């Protein structure tokens, strides 16, 4: 990595931060049993596992993974709906790579592709425009999966498609919004959470305002945190300090996140999409927790353009829903590492590069 790019903190700095963290944990645990902090970002999940932060902190401090992996929170019905489109020979599906191996009730997109379906993986939503432009007799459907970070990029592609007069491209919107999920988690009280390690890049877009309810309504320590080891440990430190001194929506990741977020990105997103009720895997229906097309852009809505046949989801024994709420850790799922592995995933948390089960499998299998 370039020297002027990241946090620049040396391992020695991380070490002394850890020492401070463990000292406060010790202090705080004089009058409580333990502390649960939750992250809600797949990149944090991977980083915490990959850097070995869970093992480096005092055992009484538990780091839980929340619903921060976009593919994992997508419901089985939505995934089946997307895969169902691939069976239509007149449609080309365009998707980010994450979705390819996610198991549907019958098969995955990768398996559909092997059988001859036209499924193309892209890096940027903009790439879909060129595909659609090159074959304008064919229908292209982009799978709109992601949080507030990804939705503006897809909205930008829709605006560009409108501008270029591309009519054979649509989007299947399955976007999810983070703040409503946080509210559901704190208000449900199923897990006793002492603070949130808030996502760095979602917050780059939305800023701090949408999180204020965490402090005002729930007195919940909250810290927008970056992705390097030093960022995460510092974020944890800031949360523990808030537990002592009072909660706020703090920003550790100041080199990227501004309190106001990124208004340009939000403007693009809000021009094309509006909040809609959405169902999350493991959590259920939450009002205003997804994004759908605004009426002016209805032409781009794949829901309106194609017919979706509901399919009964297959029961698998996968406990992704509980994993994502911090109710169980991945090894507590009976299928973990035995029947469910990254090579033969049963649930989305094992297949996604940001899923908690994949993170545990890759980095923490022996430690558990």
């Amino acid at each position, binding site marked *: *990595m*370039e020297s*002027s*790019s*990241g*946090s*620049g*903190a040396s391992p*020695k*700095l991380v070490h*002394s*931060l850890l*020492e*401070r963290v463990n000292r406060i944990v010790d202090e705080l645990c004089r009058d409580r049993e333990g502390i649960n902090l939750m992250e809600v*970002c*797949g*990149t944090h999940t991977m980083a915490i596992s990959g850097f070995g932060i869970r093992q480096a902190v005092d055992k009484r401090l538990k780091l839980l993974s929340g619903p921060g992996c*976009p593919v994992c929170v997508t419901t089985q019905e939505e995934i089946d709906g997307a895969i169902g489109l691939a069976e239509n020979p007149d449609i080309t599906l365009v998707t*980010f790579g*994450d979705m390819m191996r996610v198991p549907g009730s019958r098969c995955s997109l990768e398996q559909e592709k092997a059988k001859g379906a036209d499924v193309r993986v892209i*890096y*940027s*939503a*903009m*790439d879909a425009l060129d595909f659609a432009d090159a074959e304008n007799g064919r229908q292209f459907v982009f799978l709109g999966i*992601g949080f507030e*970070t*990804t939705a*503006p*990029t897809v909205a*930008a592609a829709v605006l560009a498609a409108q501008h270029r007069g591309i009519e054979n491209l649509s989007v299947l919107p399955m976007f999810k919004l983070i703040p409503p999920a946080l509210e559901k988690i704190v208000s449900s009280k199923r897990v006793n959470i002492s603070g949130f390690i808030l996502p*760095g*890049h979602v917050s*780059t*877009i939305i800023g701090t305002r949408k999180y204020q309810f965490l402090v005002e309504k729930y007195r919940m320590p909250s810290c927008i945190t*970056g*992705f390097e080891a*030093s960022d995460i440990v*510092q974020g944890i430190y800031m949360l523990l300090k808030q537990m002592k001194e009072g909660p706020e929506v703090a920003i*550790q990741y*100041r*080199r*990227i*996140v*501004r309190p106001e977020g*990124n208004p*340009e*990105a939000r403007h*693009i997103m809000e021009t094309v999409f509006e909040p809609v009720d959405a169902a999350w895997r493991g959590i259920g229906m939450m009002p205003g927790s997804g994004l759908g097309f605004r009426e002016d852009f209805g032409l781009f809505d794949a829901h309106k353009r194609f017919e979706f046949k509901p399919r009964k989801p297959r029961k698998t024994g996968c406990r992704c829903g509980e994993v994502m709420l911090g109710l169980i850790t991945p090894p507590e799922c009976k299928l973990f590492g035995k029947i469910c592995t990254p090579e033969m995933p049963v649930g989305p948390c094992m297949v996604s590069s*940001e899923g908690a089960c994949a993170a545990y499998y890759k980095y923490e299998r022996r430690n558990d």
Partner: protein
Amino acid sequence: MCLGIPVRIVELNRDTAIGEVGGVQREISVMMTPDAKVGDYVIVHAGFAIQIVDQEEAKENLRILEQMARAVDEKREKVRRRKNARG
């Protein structure tokens, strides 16, 4: 999906730019970061620059971390000296 690796802008057109990371160049969209200039580092998500890295903030944070580390060192040193004095 979000790597969070800063990408340096080496060439700027209107809505697009050429970004470079680790010697690899790639076209990115800069429509969400209208203030980006050549030489800036930006965070890229799915082909779009989503924010410009604030180098001043990065330096400031490093300074805070170093200060904290020094405090930890000093505390450790004090404990060690106290032990030595006793022993």
